[in-house]
């Protein structure tokens, strides 16, 4: 595949699109917040499997009659699976109590207990802190490595792209009220890894071309680099998306949001390595001078940092 797309002609529009995306995401995160899952809010959760399609209303009324007022009852995956959530509950025995109540109920003798979870309130806060810390640390370490291997402008560009990706994926989760649990946090960190992968591949080519003999403007050279790597970018994104869709469709309910976060992440990450990272490089004023090869004895550009 050879491409000749004038990516950089669209860079102003891309900048506007990205700014809008980031702004919408941030406002959604501020005003609507994330729909934190049990891992972060603390509380209890019970998943049950009924032999026949479950009657949610009768479950609700049974629970209400037994005094569990705040219980949220919903189907999970199929109409035989029921998920009961009690956010903010502070008792570690609540889940077992609910199972007992429902099993005692006339229609509930054949219920299969799928899982019970209880997460104490302090755990959630810690997870959020640790998750944030993990993200900042990951970004910091990578910035250092890229600055060491490439040049500090590339580090800045890569981080700009990653921050963009994380904010937009978080924004999507917030905007659509998708459950944000521990697996989604892991997915988000994997998005950082994936998007970085992409950005590095592109940056690598930009560096190579800037050091080459071709006499053109930085913008032109970046455009050439993007076209040269476009085939690879598309194919890798495609294979990754293939497995992600198979995870999303077959991996079961617990993995769905994980796969979804990564699907968004791969799409946004691919876009960001084309537009955010490259745009940032241009805006920071990267030029051939920044990558001058000082060691003239060793002209092979591939062996140089």
């Amino acid at each position, binding site marked *: 595949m050879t491409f000749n797309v004038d990516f950089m002609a669209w860079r102003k529009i891309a900048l506007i699109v990205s700014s809008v995306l980031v702004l919408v995401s941030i406002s959604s995160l501020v005003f609507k917040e994330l729909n934190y899952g049990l891992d972060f809010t603390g509380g209890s959760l019970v998943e049950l499997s009924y032999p026949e399609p479950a009657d949610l209303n009768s479950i609700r009324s049974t629970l209400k009659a037994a005094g569990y007022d705040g219980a949220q009852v919903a189907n999970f995956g199929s109409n035989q699976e029921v998920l009961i959530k009690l956010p903010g509950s*502070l008792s570690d025995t609540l889940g077992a109590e609910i199972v007992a109540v429902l099993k005692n109920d006339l229609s509930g003798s054949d219920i299969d207990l799928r899982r019970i979870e209880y997460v104490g309130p302090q755990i959630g806060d810690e997870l959020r802190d640790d998750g944030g810390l993990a993200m900042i640390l990951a970004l910091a370490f990578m910035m250092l490595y890229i600055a060491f291997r490439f040049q500090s402008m590339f580090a800045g560009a890569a981080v700009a792209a990653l921050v963009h990706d994380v904010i937009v994926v978080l924004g999507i989760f917030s905007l659509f009220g998708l459950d944000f649990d521990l697996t989604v946090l892991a997915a988000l960190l994997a998005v950082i890894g994936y998007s*970085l*992968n992409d950005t590095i*591949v592109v940056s690598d080519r930009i560096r190579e071309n800037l050091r080459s003999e071709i006499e053109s403007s930085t913008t032109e050279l970046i455009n050439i680099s993007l076209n040269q790597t476009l085939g690879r970018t598309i194919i890798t994104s495609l294979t990754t998306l*293939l497995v992600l869709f*198979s995870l999303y469709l077959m991996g*079961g309910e*617990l993995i769905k949001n*994980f796969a979804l976060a990564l699907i968004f992440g791969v799409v946004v990450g691919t876009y960001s390595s084309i537009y955010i990272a490259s745009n940032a490089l241009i805006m920071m004023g990267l030029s051939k001078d920044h990558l001058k090869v000082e060691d003239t004895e060793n002209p092979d550009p591939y062996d140089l940092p």
Partner: protein
Amino acid sequence: MKRYGIWKYVLIISVLCVGIIYALPNLYAPDPAVQVSYNSSSQSPDANLVNRIETILADGNSETRIEASDDYVLIRTTSSDDQLKVKSALSNNLGGDVIVALNLAPTTPQWLSNLGAEPMKLGLDLRGGVHFLMEVDTAAAIKNRQNGTLQDIKRRLREEKIRYSGAFVEDDLSISVKFQNEKVFNEAKDFLDDNYSQFLGSPDSKEPLMISLVLAELEIDQIKSDAIDQNLTTLRNRVNELGVSEPIVQRQGKTRIVVQLPGIQDTAEAKKILGKTATLEFHLEAQLDTPRTRKTNYPFKGQTGPGAELQDAVILGGDQVATAQASFDENGLPQVNITLDGQGGGRMHRATRGSIGKRLGVLFVEQKTRTKYEIDDSGQKVPVLETYEIKEIISLATIRAALGTTFRITGLDSPSESSELALLLRAGALAAPMRFVEERTVGPSLGADNIDAGILSMQLGMAMVLLFILVYYRVFGIAASLALSFNIILLIAVMSILSATLTLPGIAGIVLTVGMAVDANVLIFSRIREELAKGRKPLDAIDAGYDRAFLTIWDANFTTLIVAIVLYSLGTGAIKGFSITLSIGIITSMFTAIMGTRAFINIIYGNKKDLSRLSI
């Protein structure tokens, strides 16, 4: 084209062979099994035990196979229904001297086991079970310790005839001792400085004539750490009493303990035994002349009616009970043998030598939590977690002689009473109370579904990716497909060798690796195509493609590895499982995608010097 040294082929083939051998055990599905072992860990299973098991199972119609090892007798069954039947038959009929537990017995063939090849462990989300996270109340441990030290200081000051006017543990957990005048104060200060050097003893500025004993930071850390270690040991004993195969009891972070009990289905029972957040206190019985402010009435455990009065001074706590064992005395009557640690023995001796003929009470202190509703400022009902204690007497026995490190409690009514008391004494040996901060129970049906879903998504993902690269890269696609399959085998082999635990997020990590591992080959092949387009000869193009793509692959993978390592070090549970497979996958994929495909390509094209085009 560069020649590919013979040693590289040898290396690749050896790695592949080792990978296949160590990944192989994962193909053999484990048998649902029941394991039986003796209560005391020193006793190995004998022919007698096997006979008893055979007799019990003889009239059942479950198909079983019995194997004895050094640690336990294993009864393999063919279905999980049979497994449960066998378990209940055995636990109902075998008696109290054995522990009956569910197990998943690997069916690894002997020749593989001989090579040390074992299957990966499955996480709780894949095999069902309970996961608990408990918070240890380390402040309580320090308070306990300080109370003990306070008693000690009081006693020794009395022995030294140094009169103090008051001594107590402050809210900030320091010990304050007050004196009447300067002379005694100075005497005491010298004495305390000499004998209690672990404290940063300093005359308190708030009050003259008061000595404040503040624990050094290091000492506090030590007490906390000891408390957690002690609780870990106790929990391990309790878990053993539950009878679980392959339980995990581990410290997590500074003040937490994680307990994982695979295969447990009766979670209420598990919680009851683990959640007995109990400690013990040994007290002397109050006498008629004991002032009312220094004694308290406690009920007897499991009984209503009047209790007994015990002195408030604690002789020692449950953390100083080393063991407690039910047995029989010379006359065949039930008794409990107790062994204390050295310090506990000393304290017990000092406390009891002057009290022969009086009675020694053992208090069982249970820490429980309940939710209370309070009205907050905005008038809303908010739940508040409240901890409270229940203190009950489990034993009140007459002291016949001064007690030391080992002593026994006799006069018990039945063997069941003695074993119950021994259990309580052992179980009570918690240095600090704990409470549950996280609990996850996965039913066995969900576990099985998760495995199926995981495997199915892996197969589907793999099939789609393989198909795509075969169509897109043709001969080079074959190389990449082989490398990808090789990569999965290696990944599973490495996980098995490291005895890493496979979880659902772990499977997701493997699936993601499948998608991303192709990237290295895509990079190389794109380069080769580019070089061909530039007009290079095919074999030169291959060389150039591999060379030029290498650094890019290295940089891209290395940075992803950084992310995975950060994830691993900061994450818990789900995140850890994911990051392990991701990091291993990154490393193995570098090997297979670069070296593996190169070797294959060289075999196909290496000898065709006049090659005019590549199938790429």
